[in-house]
């Protein structure tokens, strides 16, 4: 039984500007922390909470005490405005960020798919790239061998597979990346925005492949700003605001909370921007 259980998950980012990364500045950081927390006290609609962590470090509380339980079959859509912690949560689910406190317990192998072209080398051939990317995704030699024909069929790249991908058009490279990434059905799939591939003629085939890929995944967690995409793929929604979990439940309920609670605030902010008078000549 696949599942992801989060227990009071906290994730904080230390903020270093280029100067602070150098040795001599780490001795004067406290003053800076004070200044930044003053700025942070102003009203803000985006981003996590900014504060001073231990040892006077400036930290952004990206995830602030999240508890949840995702079970097999769940298709979870993450909602929230920019900087609410969606991507951080996805990366924490994938085990890339380890929580500062609290814990994430996953039963099943998490497959994060953030950058379709990660691990692809412009100077290597299509075939070599299938190996590279496959290895990076943690596939075994046999899995890659099995997938090779399938990928060649699907991409219709033919002899191009033996050319360096430098010679590919953007669309062709994307096709290849998409085909490799969807070659193996993952247990738990984590997506930041919907993936897709290629030119108009290719889109229906890509859609069919994507549908079966997403449908056969045990658990899907996807962050998106598009309600259409979330409504198409998800049955549950999770709403984040400033790193806190605001709502988690059936998608429609969460979407309506999101639309009533978060969107008006954003609109108000947008109005303010519009109403600001232009500077005097």
């Amino acid at each position: 039984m696949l599942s992801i259980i989060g227990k009071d998950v906290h994730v904080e980012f230390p903020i270093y500007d280029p100067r602070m990364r150098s040795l001599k500045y780490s001795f004067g950081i406290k003053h800076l922390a004070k200044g930044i927390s003053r700025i942070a006290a102003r009203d803000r609609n985006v981003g996590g909470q900014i504060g001073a962590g231990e040892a006077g470090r400036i930290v952004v509380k990206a995830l602030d005490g999240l508890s949840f339980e995702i079970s097999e079959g769940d298709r979870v859509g993450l909602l929230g405005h920019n900087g609410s912690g969606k991507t951080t949560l996805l990366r924490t689910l994938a085990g890339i960020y380890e929580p500062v406190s609290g814990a994430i317990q996953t039963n099943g192998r998490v497959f994060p798919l953030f950058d379709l072209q990660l691990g692809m080398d412009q100077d290597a051939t299509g075939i070599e790239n299938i190996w590279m990317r496959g290895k990076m995704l943690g596939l075994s030699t046999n899995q890659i061998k099995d997938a090779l024909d399938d990928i060649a069929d699907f991409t219709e790249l033919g002899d191009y597979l033996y050319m360096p991908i430098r010679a590919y058009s953007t669309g062709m490279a994307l096709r290849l990346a998409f085909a490799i990434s969807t070659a193996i059905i993952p247990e738990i799939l984590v997506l930041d925005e919907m993936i897709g591939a290629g030119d108009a003629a290719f889109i229906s085939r890509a859609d069919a492949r994507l549908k079966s890929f997403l449908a056969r995944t045990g658990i899907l967690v996807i962050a998106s700003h598009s309600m259409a995409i979330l409504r198409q793929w998800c049955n549950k929604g999770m709403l984040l605001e400033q790193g806190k979990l605001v709502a988690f439940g059936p998608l429609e309920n969460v979407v309506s909370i999101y639309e009533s609670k978060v969107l008006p605030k954003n609109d108000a902010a947008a109005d303010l921007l519009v109403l600001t008078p232009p500077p005097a000549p």
Partner: protein
Amino acid sequence: MLALTLKQVDSAVDDVWAGISSWRLSHFLAWQDVRQRYRRSTLGPIWMTLSFGVQIFTMGFLSAFLFGSALEKSFPYVCAGMLFWNLITQTINDGATLFVASARYITQIKCPLTVFLLQMVWRNLIVAGHNVAIYVAIALFFLVVPSPSMVLWPLGLLLVVICLSWMALVSAVISARYRDVPQLIANILAILFWLTPLMYFPEQLGQKRFIADYNPFTHMIALVREPLLGGEPSLNDWLVVLAIAVVGWAGTFLFFARFRARIVYWL
């Protein structure tokens, strides 16, 4: 700051273990790095071998003229020494940029950090392997016969590589956090080049011989260089390098365990 929890040690053990057991991935990535250097270049990594040859040619003569040793002695000596010195400096310098260079992977997929360390060390061993050709040519030319102590040579090389791995790991972790450390390390290594008997023999230091004796790199180099030249490393060399490997890794492991989970936040 320095508090270390059992959980951190546990996860670090997991990281190292997972990294070692997925050695195939490191091996694959290392070869991919080397292949990348062959691409679109007729000579590929042979360029490195060529420039190593030129370096040895110059240094061999210079060493003979400056320090008054015979050419047939200085050439193999300088070549064998520089073969390993280049391996040492390249590995530690690459270590300093290790996590920063792999940041794209580290922030996008869950992968043991040890994989990248092994990839880098293995890549540098492959490159050093190319340079062995120069040493073989020189050894044949001057008829240098390796000593029977070559039996233990693989063990010596392994010990040296183990020492290098922890040095690279420490510089990788510190450099991920403090971005001016790579330059600092490059500078320290540049100075160490002069303090390590590579161009000159330790005896030629006369009363200042302690400079070489207290330099850990002297012993690391001697351990793998002497058998090639027909001599044998002293027991002292063995003990010093063994101590560096064991004590170094013990400290490095605790250091790595403490900061491992933070590294991704620093990138």
